[in-house]
């Protein structure tokens, strides 16, 4: 009886809802396991140092998946938005370090500032860029990402009693005696408060996941997916294509900004050179290997591919060899129909075995007789 009731309940849950909740539970479980492991001292310091970057990369992968998987446009400028978020939040934290001394008030505000600044950049860049499609859009977003990085790498910002000084080289800044330099060109920002913790990263990842899933399964998300599937038909039912593309792009940038803020508060120094196209490509690799449009896959791919090089450090010589093999295997598994079917059948076989095992242990109480 109770079995039937739960079955009916499971059927009533929409597949999307089930999918999103499975992902939430997986992430929460992973978090709890990590917390337990680290509190009992079973985690090496290397892995411990990776916990925040894991969250950062997961958030980035999920956010990029909104553009690549849901909107269906290839964007290679994710590191640029991350860069904006990182710098904006770092500046905010340094500027308010003395006025807001409580980290747990200052840091959320800094994260929000990072996200909003990145979203503004996303809209500004999105307006010209989203007129393009496919490869052209990818090239232009790549260029914009590089431009953002290089501008920040050339920027000098200082503060003194006369106010804020912004220049493109150190001499032009004309800082007074009492001034302090905040951004020092290619040397970046020093003295960012290290507020990022695994717990905050986890909370941010959860927020990102909830926002993403809710966005996808809402009226706006449906419109975005419709535009991805068939722009002409979407227009014919009265959808404003530019508007929905911009909303998605801004949301992607906002989430990347959050990740950037988390990233910048994890290290003492922040350099623009980190946010180059390698970073963008790396995030795209997570998205593609996790499955385009598959949010849960993005998280898993980001975690596996970030952890793998560290885990393999003990067999240092073969590290990159194994890494590349894993990449290729994942690529085949996600794109090849036969390989996927093989994996699915293996999973089904395992499932059957588990059910059989369960039936052996807990024998069904009564057999229905007709």
């Amino acid at each position, binding site marked *: 009886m109770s079995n039937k009731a739960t079955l009916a309940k499971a059927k009533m849950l929409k597949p999307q809802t089930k999918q999103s909740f499975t992902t939430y539970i997986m992430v929460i479980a992973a978090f709890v396991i990590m917390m337990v492991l680290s509190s009992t001292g079973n985690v090496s310091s290397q892995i411990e140092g990776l916990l925040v970057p894991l969250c950062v990369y997961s958030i980035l992968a999920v956010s990029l998946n909104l553009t690549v998987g849901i909107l269906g446009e290839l964007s290679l400028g994710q590191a640029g938005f991350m860069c904006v978020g990182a710098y904006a939040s770092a500046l905010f934290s340094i500027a308010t370090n003395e006025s807001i001394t409580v980290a747990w008030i200052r840091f959320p505000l800094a994260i929000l500032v990072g996200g909003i600044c990145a979203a503004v950049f996303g809209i500004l860049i999105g307006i010209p860029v989203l007129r393009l499609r496919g490869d052209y859009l990818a090239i232009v977003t790549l260029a914009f990402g590089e431009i953002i990085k290089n501008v920040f790498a050339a920027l000098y910002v200082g503060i003194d009693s006369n106010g804020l000084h912004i220049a493109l080289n150190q001499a032009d800044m004309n800082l007074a005696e009492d001034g302090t330099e905040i951004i020092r060109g290619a040397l970046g920002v020093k003295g960012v408060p290290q507020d990022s913790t695994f717990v905050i990263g986890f909370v941010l990842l959860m927020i990102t996941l909830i926002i993403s899933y809710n966005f996808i399964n*809402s009226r706006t998300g*449906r419109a975005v997916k419709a535009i991805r599937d068939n722009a002409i038909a979407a*227009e*014919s*039912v009265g959808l404003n294509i530019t508007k929905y593309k911009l*909303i998605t792009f801004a949301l992607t940038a906002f989430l990347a900004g959050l990740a950037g803020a988390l990233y910048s508060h994890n290290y003492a120094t922040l350099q623009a050179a980190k946010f180059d196209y390698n970073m963008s490509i790396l995030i795209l690799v997570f998205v593609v290997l996790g499955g385009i449009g598959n949010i849960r896959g993005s998280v898993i791919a980001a975690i596996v591919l970030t952890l793998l090089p560290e885990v393999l450090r003990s067999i240092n010589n073969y590290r990159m060899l194994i890494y590349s093999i894993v990449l290729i295997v994942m690529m085949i598994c996600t794109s090849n129909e036969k390989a996927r079917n093989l994996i699915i059948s293996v999973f089904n076989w395992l499932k059957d075995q588990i059910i059989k095992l369960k039936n052996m242990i807990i024998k069904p109480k009564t057999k229905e007789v007709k």
Partner: protein
Amino acid sequence: MALLEVKNLGISFGGLRAVDEFSVSIEKGELYGLIGPNGAGKTTVFNMLTGVYKPSNGVIMLDGQNITGKSTIEINRAGIARTFQNIRLFKAMSVLDNVKVGLHNHYKYSTAEGVFRMPRFFFTEKEMDKKAMELLSVFELDSKADFLASNLPYGDQRKLEIARALATQPKLLLLDEPAAGMNPNETAELMNTIRFVRDNFDMTVLLIEHDMSLVSGICEKLSVLNFGQLLCEGNTFDVLKNPEVITAYLGD
């Protein structure tokens, strides 16, 4: 006052005059057919009516409102919905979601309300589900609401496209070759559906069709296009008997 009043519509692509001096007047509630040999410019007329192409000259009036040269979105909001010759569904989305996209502009809540799951999200989504299922049941697709649109059989895909167009609550429905690729049974079923839609939704329908059994079966009036020009128009029965029309289709 006719629902759709088209006067002297014309368009050129470079030196090619694709449609010239096309006029038509469709009354509310009519089932109107647009026929003609391949390449006569029928779909071009549809594309001008829905704002995909901007006409070089001529006027399009819908329900007393001038919609000439407006964008596709504005025209859809003014009340014209269409289906496509080569089916254009949102393939990676469910059947239900396809219809719900059609309902997009009639059931509103903001992006923020959706992301933060405000009460209005649940309320509106429920209403949308109800309305979409109603529409799907008209086309007997309600049992397949969870299917991916691309997994539907061909005939059902055509029906879903009509359902999606109807979801935008148009005054005028344009069907571009709805029976293309259907077998006689499916065509007969489709004829019933179109008639049903006209009667139950108070719809005016303009359709392009090559299948003469469908045209003669349901269309009350016809216009015939040949080489971009109006060859003749009038009651279906008269038009199909017109020797000029027969010549245009079969040659001398």
